[in-house]
């Protein structure tokens, strides 16, 4: 536990976390500091490309085994199942409508790639190795949660939902971040260490610095959301935003232990299960469940669960993963 606290404290004074804090503070203080939309998108493209590529290179180096397939499958199942838990919890704990609860639940089944990236960089600085293919697991976990949520809505009287049509399905499966992540993963895999050597001074060395600026931007956006939508954060909603990642992490932990992943892999599976989407799922919800309240899911995901995972969650997951794997 001492380990845990020192890890958390270390984590908290890293430039990455403090950049996020700066963004939130600037937003709450109503500074006009902002990162242009195009620059924010460019940063996210960089991060997805880099993390995907490095994952692929690591797979090229260590080869793949049967576990890759199992991990992918496990990820898909987690992504599809966690929204059911989240939905039940929301209906139990809060006064949310079925529709809103389903929309929020979709976010918690899916994943946040920046949380994953932040965890990767903590693992790296601690020298803890992880399976490179966890990037592919991350990609696989993006979409299934959406289907579960739409099923929840349809079951409760489809009148509210446009349901899923072919166009939406294609949009979800081929949304930019999945395609870039998987594409970069495949490129990294194909070109291996040699490919990495060519571009490592672009995708490895400046990585953490870019992550700082990206987290600054996320802080700014999260702060704006809290300022405008903070009213929806009743105590029970807030409690959900902290409890659900812990439940997700526990599910991820059990799965990862069953699969026999490395300590790093266990951590990442916990992080993926604990994190909530804020890119792909919100866009899908606007199309499929336009009547659900976006403040609810965006504020919860970006304003509560993301900072929780970033500051306390990740060090906790690392500590637990290490303790339970003896890593």
């Amino acid at each position, binding site marked *: 536990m001492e380990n845990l606290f020192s890890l958390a404290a270390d984590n908290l004074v890293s430039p990455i976390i403090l950049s996020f804090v700066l963004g939130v503070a600037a937003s709450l203080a109503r500074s006009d500091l902002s990162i242009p939309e195009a620059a*924010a998108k460019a940063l996210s493209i960089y991060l997805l490309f880099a993390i995907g590529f490095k994952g692929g290179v690591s797979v090229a180096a260590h080869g793949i085994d049967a576990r890759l397939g199992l991990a992918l499958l496990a990820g898909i199942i987690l992504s599809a199942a966690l929204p059911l838990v989240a939905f039940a919890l929301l209906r139990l704990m809060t006064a949310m409508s079925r529709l809103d609860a389903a929309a929020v639940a979709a976010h918690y089944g899916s994943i946040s790639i920046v949380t994953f990236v932040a965890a990767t960089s903590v693992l790296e600085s601690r020298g803890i190795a992880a399976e490179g293919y966890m990037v592919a697991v991350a990609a696989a976990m993006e979409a299934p949660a959406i289907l579960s949520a739409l099923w929840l809505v349809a079951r409760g009287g489809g009148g509210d939902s446009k349901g899923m049509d072919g*166009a939406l399905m294609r949009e979800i499966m081929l949304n930019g971040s999945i395609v870039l992540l998987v594409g970069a993963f495949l490129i990294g895999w194909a070109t291996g260490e040699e490919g990495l050597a060519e571009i490592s001074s672009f995708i490895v060395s400046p990585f953490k610095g870019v992550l700082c600026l990206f987290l600054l931007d996320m802080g700014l956006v999260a702060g704006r959301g809290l300022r405008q939508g903070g009213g929806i954060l009743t105590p029970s909603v807030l409690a959900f935003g902290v409890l659900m990642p812990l439940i997700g992490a526990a599910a991820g932990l059990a799965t990862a232990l069953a699969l026999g992943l490395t300590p790093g892999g266990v951590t990442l599976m916990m992080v993926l299960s604990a994190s909530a989407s*804020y890119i*792909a799922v919100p866009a899908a919800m606007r*199309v499929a469940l336009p009547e659900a309240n976006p403040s609810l899911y*965006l504020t919860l995901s970006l304003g509560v669960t993301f900072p929780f995972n970033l500051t306390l969650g990740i060090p906790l997951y690392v500590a637990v993963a290490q303790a339970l794997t003896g890593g």
Partner: protein
Amino acid sequence: MQTHKAKRVEITIEAVMQSRLTDALKKAGVTGYTVLPVLGGSGRSGEWSRAGQVSRASGMVQVICIIRPERLDGLLEGAFAVVERHIGVVSVTDCDVLRAERF
């Protein structure tokens, strides 16, 4: 110069719905449209701004469509079917255009 009566329809709609809207417009016989970026705005669903956004979830666009008056009803019906359950605004203005053969 010789001008012709036309209708200018302006639809402010969520970016995620853009392709669905333009598909519907094409089905309604619209031959052209122009899409403008939107920086931010405010309405019943609150205030928003594009600054720093990575997700397409919280952006809007403005689709402008100039058509012959007789086509207006078809267009509005097509557009309405898409916009109906979504946030956004549809407005129609009378205008005069050059080169009417284009519309």
